[in-house]
């Protein structure tokens, strides 16, 4: 009689989706047990940890012991706490990118530090502004599955977006880890900036399919879904590899490569001394520090210029300059497909700055048609020329227009000199495109002088403003110059760039630690740790092993060894 209920419970017991055994490996158990064992009163149960667990002699025990001195030093808590964190915390935009902007987009964080990282970027509304210091120590303690409204702040404390934060604490989440989803405004710019804030706060950009992978590895999905995951992840990692390859030419990759090479070089210098000190000339510390400082600067600059979002928001200012009557206004009209500027054959028709707006691959661009620049006595035209020059100074890109009919004149040369003399606010010269207009009317080939003069410009384009020919080329040229060609909407290359961005952030952190080690005059061994971290961060995509590279460098470069 009592059989039935017991039978039912047996069935339900076996029916219950079984959790996979915890991924804690025996050796860790071993070392944990050991740390108890090493507590003040050592028990005589010495062989406890090595007792065979009904094994044959073939089976071996993996030993990984903590340093007893370290364990005993009162830092146990710190380590134990971290021990529970089996993996890193990942972040990604989980709604689709690239299509027409949706109303809402979601950035998802998953992993043991998801709440902590979200707490760093998310400020719930309604709470009074607290002092910065307190904010960092005051952690966000959300209730699982309760939506909170607030804003996301970047590392400087600027508001990035208004968001809804949805905390889903382990195990009641897709990945069975702590998950926080930030629902942002749907524009790509917002989403990217929120994601970037999360990355800067310590998250790692998720690999393709990684949320699903984690869900699977944490026992969330059933077997039938498993095959799909396998295919998904392998397909995506191939795509990611492709993307990485495609991105080799673009973005920061050349910088990343060169920084990595420099790190390896420094490691070579330093590590060679660790093993072969007596055979080597002394290390030039000043030179090494100089190199580290310049690398640090490179990374900071790259991160600064990486602000594509800024560009996407504020748009580009493009000044069209040139001698009178080379067709600047016609170009503006052709480009903006309007009759915005008055066009006549009379030189000096345009007296004021004429604006027109166009969109180039989603980037708002303001075209500024200017008065032809020439020496003039006419007071109105003179003011116009001055305004032209002011506009050119403030532009992101200058288009210098010349006429194919007239060829390269002395006035053009003079104008070019002037353009080259302008420096933008950050000290670099403004990228300038040479537009050779009136191609249709060109009597003879102008290849000769174009070839000669093109060297002074970032690009040169042949156009015919009347027919609109060449405008497409011009757009492409502009995108290339400002680097926007590297981030087509939601495309693969953007992902690569985002990864490189993350690498650079990690590298910067490593360099910061390195600098403080140097300032605190730590021994050289300590420098290598952070250099290694930097090199590892920079080599992440390919996952290369550094040790062998450093070693072969050491023996290739220095004459050492018995």
């Amino acid at each position, binding site marked *: 009689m009592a059989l039935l209920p017991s039978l039912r419970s047996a069935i339900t017991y076996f029916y219950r989706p079984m959790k996979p055994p915890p991924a804690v490996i025996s050796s860790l158990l071993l070392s944990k047990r050991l740390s108890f064992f090493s507590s003040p009163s050592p028990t005589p149960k010495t062989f406890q940890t090595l007792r065979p667990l009904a094994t044959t002699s073939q089976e071996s025990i*993996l030993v990984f012991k903590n340093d007893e001195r370290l364990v005993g030093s009162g830092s146990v808590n710190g380590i134990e706490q971290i021990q529970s964190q089996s993996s890193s915390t990942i972040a990604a935009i989980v709604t689709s990118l690239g299509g027409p902007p949706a109303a809402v987009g979601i950035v998802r964080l998953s992993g043991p530090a998801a709440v902590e990282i979200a707490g760093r970027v998310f400020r719930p509304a309604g709470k009074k502004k607290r002092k910065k210091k307190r904010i960092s120590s005051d952690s966000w303690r959300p209730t699982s599955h309760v939506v909170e409204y607030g804003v996301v702040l970047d590392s400087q404390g600027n508001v990035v977006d208004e968001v809804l934060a949805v905390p889903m604490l382990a195990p009641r989440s897709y990945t069975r880890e702590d998950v926080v989803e930030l629902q942002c405004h749907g524009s790509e710019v917002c989403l990217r900036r929120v994601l970037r804030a999360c990355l800067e706060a310590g998250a790692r950009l998720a690999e393709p399919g990684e949320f699903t992978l984690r869900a699977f590895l944490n026992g969330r999905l059933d077997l039938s879904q498993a095959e799909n995951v396998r295919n998904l992840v392998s397909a995506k990692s191939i795509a990611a590899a492709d993307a990485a390859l495609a991105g080799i030419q673009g973005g920061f990759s050349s910088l990343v490569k060169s920084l990595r090479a420099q790190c390896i070089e420094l490691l070579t210098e330093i590590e060679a001394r660790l093993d072969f000190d007596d055979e080597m000339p002394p290390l030039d510390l000043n030179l090494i520090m100089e190199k580290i400082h310049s690398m640090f600067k490179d990374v900071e600059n790259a991160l600064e210029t990486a602000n594509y979002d800024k560009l996407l928001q504020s748009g580009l200012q493009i000044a069209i300059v040139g001698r009178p009557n080379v067709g600047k206004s016609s170009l503006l009209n052709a480009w903006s497909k309007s009759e915005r500027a008055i066009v006549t054959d009379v030189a000096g028709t345009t007296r004021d700055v004429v604006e027109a707006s166009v969109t180039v691959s989603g980037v708002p661009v303001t075209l500024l048609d200017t008065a032809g620049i020439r020496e003039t006595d006419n007071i109105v035209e003179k003011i116009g020329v001055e305004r032209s020059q002011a506009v050119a100074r403030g532009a992101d890109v200058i288009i210098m227009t010349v006429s194919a009919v007239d060829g390269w004149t002395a006035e053009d040369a003079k104008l070019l000199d002037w353009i080259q003399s302008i420096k933008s606010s950050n000290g670099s010269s403004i990228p300038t495109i040479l537009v050779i207009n009136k191609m249709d009317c060109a009597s003879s080939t102008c290849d000769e002088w174009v070839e000669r003069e093109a060297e002074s410009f970032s690009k040169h384009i042949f156009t015919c403003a009347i027919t609109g020919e060449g405008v497409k080329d011009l757009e492409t040229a502009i995108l290339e110059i400002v680097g926007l060609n590297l981030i087509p909407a939601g495309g693969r290359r953007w992902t690569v760039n985002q990864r490189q961005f993350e690498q650079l952030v990690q590298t910067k952190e490593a360099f910061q630690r390195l600098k403080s080690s140097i300032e605190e005059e730590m021994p050289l061994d300590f420098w290598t740790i952070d250099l290694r971290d930097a090199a590892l961060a920079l080599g992440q995509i390919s996952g290369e092993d550094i040790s062998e590279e450093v070693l072969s460098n050491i023996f290739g470069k220095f004459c050492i060894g018995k």
Partner: protein
Amino acid sequence: MVTDILLGKNDNVEGVFTFFGMKFFAPSVILTTGTFMSGKIWVGRTSMSAGRAGESASHGLTENLQRLGFETDRLKTGTPARVDCRTVDFSGLELQRGDEEVSWFSFDPDFHIEREQMCCYLTRTTKITHQLIKDNLNETPTYGGWVEAKGPRYCPSIEDKIVRFEDKESHQIFLEPEGRNVPELYVQGFSTGLPERLQLPLLRTLPGLENCSMLRPAYAVEYDYLPAHQCSRSLMTKKIEGLFFSGQINGTTGYEEAAAQGIISGINAARHSDGKPLIVLERESSYIGTLIDDLVTKDLREPYRMLTSRSEHRLLLRSDNADSRLTPLGREVGLIDDRRWKMYQDKQARIEDEKERLKTVRISGGDLAADVTQLSGQPVKDSSTLETLLKKPHIQYKLLDKHGFGNNMLSRKEKECVEIDIKYEGFILRQQIQLQQMVHKQHRLLPKDLDYYSMTTLSLEAREKLSKVRPQTIGQASRVGGVSPADITALLIILESNQRKAQEQRRQQMLASLTVDSETDSMSKAPLTGTINS
């Protein structure tokens, strides 16, 4: 001389067979063949079968191991000439003294018997040395083109150094005495493949050695080894239970490398004989672990030498904490007796107490504070603990001693430990945390019977390499050459789905048997239940 291995029925070792026909039986056998297995030494173009100068090679074992299915390969290494120290004029040579404070391998002070230290001497190659070598390059194996195998990178021959670093006008050569009671001097940095007739004139180009006599010429030795992926990390071979390989047979070179493997293979051979599980030192635990992990995982093309930079965790793997990392293990495997164990524990307690004391003793002003300010360039706040002082740059424990704030109960080494623990606490902790995170992921065990070839989501190269190396853990798999992070992800997925499949199967079986049981049960009990229901 051992020429064969005696096998039992279960591919287990039973003993060895010798050249003269004797059988020796043993439950565990360690092969430590050094450079002797089919060894051949070369001086110039001339070679003879030998394991070492004056000692014959071992023959037959290679072939018999191959017959058992082992893969063998050949390595080359060299040794420089020895000169008679009585014929060297040391008067013009730079003296290289030993360390003023002697360091010991052993942590047991009973073995710290200090003796007078012998000096090494420094001499340099001259223009004539370089000329002589350049004139005779075609007489060297590498440049003459009759030996293709290059020696290890960290032991370049003198001709290699001169060719590769042409701008260097001179290279350092160290003269090292080989022992207290022997006349041999080891000419470090001067190994060469030149024929013997040129070697003495070459040595005599070195200042101080103008009239030297050569006791033994430099020679290269070529020998058989067994690529160590055939061993697991316990150093027992994967093919034959109870057979262990240790030392140069695994492709290493050097004394410390041999000792490191010796202790592991020794411990495990003994444990195997006792029927106990074998131990494996994880890579992160020690340089021994790093060495063995590299050996069995990586595809090595030259004799392996341990170098500091081979460990990713060198801030944690230091000589000052070698005991606190490994002595407890030694105790567990029965190598540390009560005396040593008590000594070890007392030492750790002293270090612990001292760190505690430094945290609590505070000073305000005074000579010590003034000295600290001056040395570190940093101000000392009132009522600073000694610990905070020690954390400042350039401040060593010695300074505390000098001002009477030290602890006389501690030995110099113990003070060093205290100093390191305090000074670098932040760094050590950070590395430790990184390590723990990694260990979590990497120490996951791989089943022994995985069929890598059937895993189509792995790259072809990864399938081949993993099948060959057969790693024990995920971490080890990730270090196998040609295995990418994507391969590891794919591998994790496969493991997980296999596990689920197995669970599913077990569940199905259980259910099936339960259904059968319940069917029979319910049939027999049917009337009963019926009555109840009604």
